[in-house]
């Protein structure tokens, strides 16, 4: 029998606020254990929560970006269960009345863009971290650090609209781009800024009703999500095909061994005893706040991607790469002003991104070094055919290490660039006409003779020309002649 997978995702996004969700402790990562704690986030008797406006604002921005319906009055609830990294043994979250509901995230897939529906987005607090198994003297122990306890999270729950692991991976990629774009999270899955659980069930193709689902936790990279889901789908399919039944359970994905382990089965199902948190009055979001958040929303990545394609005449691939981050898209648009869009795109996608990668720079650091305006000066000359490509690349290389405009760089390096193509072209034509033999050999396929021709042009330029430029001009002229 053919089966179809039905997958829903639950994502936790750690917000990049300065302070925690319900107290004024730093939300930063990497401090000494248990040093970013106060009575509230340590769950000391008598301490009370106080809500961070910035976390709510982040939720509003994400909600607006994906078209959620925002609740003007939402409610904080307590989710009760015992766990040592949860200081109060309950988590403050939202339950009955979350801040954001509905909406959809547009995701680029191979067959074209699709919108994956969302059920809700709400704000909640993170737990601390436990480390286990470890030892203390002769005993096995777990160690607990509460620095992360109370850091704000957004929980985003999708509809069970995914049918393939690749769709989930694409969704997470799009989500990661969006939250970074909005500046609300660093969304580094490795660091746990973006965590993902998945609900998976299988059903015979064509059947309406859902099968029994399992929940997979610990999907901590985009590749891990894809592999973990493949593993679980394969496991469920094998079980069903051999006549077995799926048991409702929670599984942990072990990415190192590409293996799933059952964490708890149904008999351990929790009874979270949610109820409205009596320490926190209702969360009221006034219309003006929503309007301010809406007004402050940047052009969204998918809109910008589409606009890049039409406004700059870029292929879809280019538009997607250039809108990977907002900084890159800004850099590109700044660079492209008054230039051919594709020329600017080519330069960003090859030269700029390669340089950034080689030097392990952030785009901000790169922009400080080679501002878009400076690079634009170079590309303008390329476009005006004042600089041949190879020379332009040489100038770009100088730009990476030195100050100065294109002209200053050329002068500093003793290259007469002003009108160099115009000056060299007659020399190239003259040399071709003066040496019909080598030209014929070249055209017949003996490309080694090009070196001789380059030498001739160099001689006629009095050694002033850049060999790379001469080579390119010769090739172009010879290609033109062979074609005609």
């Amino acid at each position, binding site marked *: 029998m053919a089966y179809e997978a039905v997958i829903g995702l639950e994502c936790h996004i750690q917000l990049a*606020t*300065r*302070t925690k969700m319900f*107290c*004024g*402790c*730093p939300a930063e990562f990497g401090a*000494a*254990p*248990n*040093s*970013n*704690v*106060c*009575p*509230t986030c*340590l769950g000391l008797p008598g301490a009370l929560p*106080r*809500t*961070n*406006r*910035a*976390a*709510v604002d982040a939720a509003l921005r994400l909600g607006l970006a994906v078209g959620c319906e925002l609740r003007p*009055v939402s409610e*904080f609830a307590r989710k009760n269960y*015992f766990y*040592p990294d949860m200081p109060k043994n309950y988590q403050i979250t939202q339950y009955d009345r979350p801040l954001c509901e509905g909406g959809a995230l547009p995701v680029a897939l191979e067959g074209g863009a699709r919108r994956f529906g969302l059920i809700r987005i709400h704000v909640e607090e993170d737990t601390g971290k*436990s*480390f*286990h*198994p470890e030892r*203390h003297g002769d005993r*096995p*122990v*777990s*160690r*607990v*650090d*509460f620095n992360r306890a109370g850091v704000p999270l957004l929980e985003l729950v999708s509809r069970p609209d995914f049918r393939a692991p690749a769709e989930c991976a694409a969704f997470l990629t799009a989500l990661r781009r969006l939250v970074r774009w909005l500046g609300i999270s660093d969304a580094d899955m490795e660091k746990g800024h973006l965590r993902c659980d998945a609900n998976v069930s299988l059903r015979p193709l064509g059947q309406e009703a859902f099968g029994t689902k399992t929940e997979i936790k610990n999907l901590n990279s985009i590749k891990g999500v894809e592999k973990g889901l493949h593993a679980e789908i394969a496991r469920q399919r094998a079980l069903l095909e051999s006549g077995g039944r799926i048991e409702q359970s929670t599984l*942990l994905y072990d990415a190192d061994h590409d293996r799933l*382990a*059952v*964490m*708890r*089965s149904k008999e*351990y199902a929790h*009874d979270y*005893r949610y109820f*409205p948190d009596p320490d*926190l*009055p*209702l*969360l*009221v979001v006034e219309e003006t706040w929503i309007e301010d958040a809406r007004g402050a929303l940047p052009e969204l990545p998918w809109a910008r991607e589409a606009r890049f394609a039409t406004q700059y005449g870029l292929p879809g691939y280019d538009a997607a790469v250039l809108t990977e981050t907002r900084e890159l898209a800004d850099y590109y648009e700044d660079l492209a002003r008054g230039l051919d869009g594709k020329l600017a795109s080519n330069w960003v996608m090859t030269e700029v991104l390669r340089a950034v990668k080689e030097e392990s720079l952030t785009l901000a650091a790169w922009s400080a070094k080679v501002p878009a305006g400076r690079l634009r000066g170079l590309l303008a000359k390329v476009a005006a055919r004042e600089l041949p490509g190879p020379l332009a690349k040489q100038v770009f290389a100088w730009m990476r290490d030195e100050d100065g405009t294109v002209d200053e760089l050329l002068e500093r390096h003793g290259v007469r660039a002003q009108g160099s193509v115009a000056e060299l072209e007659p020399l190239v034509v003259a040399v071709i006409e003066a040496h019909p033999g080598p030209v014929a050999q070249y055209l017949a396929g003996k490309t080694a003779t090009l070196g001789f021709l380059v030498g001739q042009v160099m001689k006629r330029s009095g050694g002033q020309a850049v060999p790379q430029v001469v080579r390119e001009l010769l090739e172009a002229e010879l290609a033109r002649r062979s074609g005609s």
Partner: protein
Amino acid sequence: MAIDRAEVERIAELARLEIAPERMGRMATELSAVLEFVAALGRLDLARLAPSTFAPAGTPLRADELDDRRIPAAEALSAATEHDDGFFLVPPIVENVNP
């Protein structure tokens, strides 16, 4: 609504309490008596009423600024029976993993 021993056990489990077997019967009786008493609420006409909730003013919101209420790690740990090297210690967390 009476509450039996099995129910007391179920709740005790959720609440992480352990009721000694000899106390179990009495606890069930006492809780049942209280539940019987609260059943009086059924005599009130509550259908049209919303559950009580907070005044509509809304929760105050805090600016995203650091405050000075942090406590040093040494002090945070000092109240714990078991800590080591900056961490609170607990018996090993086992996730009920059946490989």
